[in-house]
């Protein structure tokens, strides 16, 4: 048996074992439970935010790291339905039970062959966007789902839907599909253009973040990243190491900086500055290896 054959078998075994088990709740440590939960949840979406608060109230006292200060709470609840696309199953149409809350009128579900209406109200065809993130909106039948590939739009009780999409430079086509409970589908597409405005480049927001803040490896290092004006230079400097990089077309930058001479357990300041003179400062501490 060759090494690759042996490895393939071991990888299959490993992946099978992992895939067979459920995905657990993600927990994180926090010191101000509800405030940090709400902030984190907002980043993940409004639906998640509701779950966060609801679950934190139940789970916050359950987990403790023993310090009496930090507790843990779920980021994703196992009780949450995954937002995955569903393929209508024609065979289920005739056998689907009628919900008990439905008025006792003759059910038309089994004979419903009318595709749901699907309209895109924003943006209109040919729309030129100056940002690469655009919120698409429209209307469909009440109760229908709207999706782009594997991603579902939020559909409210009136049939109004919305979905935020990331555009690439140039022309973009967004193809939406609506599906009703009977499995009928309708599609609609719109082409929009993302044209980065030249006027905002000079004022592109500068942001810098660090990843670790401390390191126990040899040599110790940290990773810095953020956003800035595309093409501008970002320089990271400190008494014990530094470097520079150029902001990418996407407006993002990343730099790994090693601090080989950093004294152990002594915190020092790391300066980050871009070529427009905008600055940020962080602290870094090298720890004893191992």
């Amino acid at each position, binding site marked *: 048996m060759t090494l690759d054959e042996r490895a393939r078998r071991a990888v299959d075994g490993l992946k099978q074992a992992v895939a067979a088990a459920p995905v657990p709740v993600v927990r994180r440590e926090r010191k101000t439970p509800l405030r940090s939960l709400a902030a984190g949840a907002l*980043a993940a979406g409004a639906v998640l935010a509701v779950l966060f608060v609801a679950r934190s109230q139940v789970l916050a006292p359950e987990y403790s790291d023993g310090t009496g200060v930090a507790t843990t709470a779920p980021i994703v609840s196992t009780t949450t339905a995954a937002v995955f696309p569903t393929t209508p199953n024609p065979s289920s149409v005739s056998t689907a039970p009628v919900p008990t809350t439905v008025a006792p009128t003759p059910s038309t579900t089994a004979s419903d062959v009318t595709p749901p209406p699907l309209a895109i109200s924003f943006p209109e065809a040919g729309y030129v966007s100056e940002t690469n993130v655009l919120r698409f909106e429209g209307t469909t039948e009440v109760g229908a789902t709207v999706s782009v590939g594997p991603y579902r739009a939020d559909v409210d009780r009136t049939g109004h839907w919305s979905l935020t999409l990331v555009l690439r430079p140039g022309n973009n086509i967004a193809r939406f599909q609506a599906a009703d409970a009977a499995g009928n589908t309708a599609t609609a597409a719109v082409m929009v253009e993302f044209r980065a405005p030249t006027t905002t480049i000079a004022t592109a927001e500068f942001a810098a973040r660090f990843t670790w803040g401390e390191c126990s490896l040899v040599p110790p290092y940290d990773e810095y990243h953020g956003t800035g004006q595309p093409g501008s230079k970002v320089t990271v400097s400190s008494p014990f190491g530094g470097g520079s990089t150029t902001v990418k077309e996407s407006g993002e930058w990343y730099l790994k900086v090693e601090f080989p001479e950093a004294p152990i357990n002594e915190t020092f300041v790391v300066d980050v500055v871009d070529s427009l003179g905008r600055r940020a400062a962080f602290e870094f501490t090298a720890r004893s*290896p191992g």
Partner: protein
Amino acid sequence: MDAEVTEPVVVRPVEPFEAFYRREFPRMVAIGFALSGSRPAAEDLAQDAFIAAHQSWDRIGRYENPQAWVRRVMVNRSVSAYRSRLSEARAILRLGGQRQSVVEPMDPEDAAFWAAVRGLPTRQRQAVVLHYVEDLAVSEIAETLGCAVNTAKAHLHKARKNLAVKLGVTP
């Protein structure tokens, strides 16, 4: 002048964090387990990496390949034996032995293979795990490890050679 017609691209939505997490978590646990050999530590490493991603999901979710970011965080964090031990200790403390493990028991031969992988020097171990578990190209391994392509190639070559000797198989 004729208008230039360019091929439109299909837009990519910002994937909800939850969907990303549910899809990618088992993969990350597999990497964590291959690197650490500890189930609780693997789960904790993966969770820590996803938490880091969640905190900046507004930015990371727009990346072409957010899983590469999570993978890099995991691999970096697994480097430190201290952190791995801490992760495991924290996992045990938090769960009080009640958490259901994500990784089920595996075949003894497979377990022996991963034990041999974990016996490799750190960089070799990382390179070979990324090569086999994630099926990454050398350039992607280099990007994940933050080193030059030739360096990653050398790590992978040595790792495969050492593994073959340890396992008594043909390289």
